[in-house]
């Protein structure tokens, strides 16, 4: 086991797959010479060359469109959209083209594209550079959606996403880039559609994603001091969604909390709450509670951004208040 930062794990995961599959190429803005504006792709140009690691003009539609075109001929492509906010700039390619190609060709055409993008708040970048938009992509039939919270998962889920024949949107969280963690030395390939129980517990279930996972874990430790034993699930993959892990946990604990960074309306936790209401209603001892960012863009001001995004304090207090 080596220790790697989440940031370096991005390049490590991509490199692992580029070594394995010589067809795999990558394109995006400032990813090659500069190694990415978040330095997540450092070293890839040197190892794999400019034909495989390609800087593009500032053309998000062309990045996704060209990736899709190449992918339809069987070449797997990693396409980077610098900030997830700019998925909106190229949404047609994502929502109407990539997502529907298989369906509209009766399964003949597959689109092995991974759309990597820096997601989430905490960097004081303001309303148009901080959003958590995983729910934008979760709602599109035809896309798969992944958002890892640890360096090992970055590598393992990256590999799984690249090897998956369908379009996968891969959300890298800006506020996790500096976080370090153990990663396997050998080739590491995980599975899409699997959640992980990060902390077993018996009193309630807290389902969280990406940056919200370490916060939920910290909140769980605080709750433990107050005699509340929370189980924390890292959802990891929104599409496919590992409902059995979530439902199994709720069957055990009887209470569910979701911790979501996305704005409240139609956040991913709303879907989880709906599934649990549908399939585990009689397991529940109380209402499903969603802890989310309010339905607002993220403020650029430090204090306000911290107020808006669910904090350890807010998670712990909400859980304690609801169980209490």
């Amino acid at each position, binding site marked *: 086991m080596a220790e790697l930062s989440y940031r370096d794990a991005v390049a490590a995961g991509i490199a692992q797959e580029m070594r394995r599959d010589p067809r795999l190429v990558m394109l995006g*803005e*400032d990813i090659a*010479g*500069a*190694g990415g*504006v978040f330095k997540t792709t450092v070293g890839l140009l040197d190892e794999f060359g400019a034909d495989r690691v390609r*800087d593009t*003009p*500032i*053309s*998000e*539609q*062309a990045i996704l469109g060209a990736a899709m075109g190449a992918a339809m001929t069987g070449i797997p492509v990693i396409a980077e959209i610098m900030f997830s*906010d*700019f998925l909106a*700039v190229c949404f047609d390619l994502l929502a109407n083209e990539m997502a529907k190609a298989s369906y509209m060709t009766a399964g003949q055409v597959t689109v092995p594209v991974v759309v990597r993008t820096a997601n989430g708040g905490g960097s*004081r*970048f*303001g*309303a*148009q*550079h901080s959003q958590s938009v995983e729910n934008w992509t979760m709602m599109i039939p035809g896309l798969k959606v992944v958002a890892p919270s640890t360096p090992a998962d970055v590598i393992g889920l990256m590999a799984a996403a690249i090897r998956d024949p369908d379009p996968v949107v891969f959300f890298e969280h800006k506020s996790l880039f500096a976080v370090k963690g153990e990663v396997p030395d050998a080739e590491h390939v995980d599975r899409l559609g699997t959640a992980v129980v990060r902390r077993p517990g018996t009193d309630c279930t807290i389902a969280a994603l990406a940056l919200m996972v370490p916060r939920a874990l910290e909140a769980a430790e605080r709750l433990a001091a107050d005699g509340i034993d929370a189980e924390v699930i890292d959802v990891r993959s929104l599409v496919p969604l590992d409902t059995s892990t979530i439902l199994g946990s709720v069957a055990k604990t009887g209470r569910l909390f979701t911790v979501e960074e996305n704005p*409240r*309306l139609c956040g991913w936790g709303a879907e989880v709450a709906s599934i649990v209401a549908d399939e585990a209603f009689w397991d529940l001892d109380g209402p499903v509670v969603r802890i989310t960012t*309010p*339905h*607002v863009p993220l*403020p*650029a*001001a*430090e*204090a*306000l*951004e911290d*107020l*808006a995004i669910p*904090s350890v*304090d*807010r998670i712990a*207090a*909400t859980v304690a208040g609801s169980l209490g």
Partner: protein
Amino acid sequence: MSAEPQQLLAPDGTLHGDLPLPLGEISRLYRAMVVARVFDGKCSAMQRQGRLATYAPYEGQEAAQIGAASALEASDWLVASYRDAAAMALRGYPWSNLILGRTGDERGGHAPEGVRVLPPSITVGGHMIHAVGIAWAERLKGTDAVALTMFGDGATSEGDFHEAMNFAAVFATPTVFFCQNNGWAISLPTSRQTAAETIADKAVGYGMTGLVVDGNDVLAVHEAVRRAVSTARAGEGPTLIEALTYRIGPHTTTDDPGRYRDPAEVESWRERDPLRRVRRFLETQGAWDEDAQAAAEHDAGLEAEAAVAAAEMVAALDGDEIFSAMYAVPTIHLEEQRARLRRDGR
């Protein structure tokens, strides 16, 4: 098709052709460039001190911004980007607003009544079409106001550029497209942004006039924009102007250009500093001297201090403010969330 960039002032301060403006006006433009440079240095310094969030310096682009902005009338609109503070300030967008905005306070984006300047666009290319819609609306209202939009070389690769240019030309809206080709878009040089010989060449495909101007020559920029503005005002349609300039500093305060560009290139552009040539010209005309320079720098320093003080005096935002400006007519759902956050207080 490309001709030499239009130039009136050579880098050594020699004037080619007729004086486009009275000397007093040229001194005024030069003074505005001095102010702009002082503010740029101040903002970069404040960012290093942790008093501002990420900042995009415009050092080296003062002639392009001041030259273009000075060719507009008070009733005209400016629709610019994150690197265009000098142009925005000249059009009446207060420096204190620009600084406040960079501290992360959205009230910086609230311009004083009557100032026809949109807040800086952060999404590359997203704003160009606004200048088309604004210009169209002014026509609908029967005014003769013009909208000028500023953007970088990189922004011309966005689909938005194509659609904005085409719309403007088809509608013949009174829009001026002003591209500051500063050589770089973060780490990508212009040569890898476009295979066209010039960005101005792109105008042809839209049925629009395109021209290239020396962007470090404030007089040439002013003249070119003044003409494009009067063409637009006369109802004769939009123009694309490409101002050749250079981004002396990093892309933003978080960027390290050492990773991707040769410092010798930066030095060669410092030789073509946009302020120096106007100053030389004014000095040869007897319209400027050491004392005037000292006074201009002193005044600029005071103006910067006052703007910073004004921005830093604004009381910190309250948590409630997150919700206040969400809608003109608030929704019940959001009011509930406001109440909840207020109650929980965290």
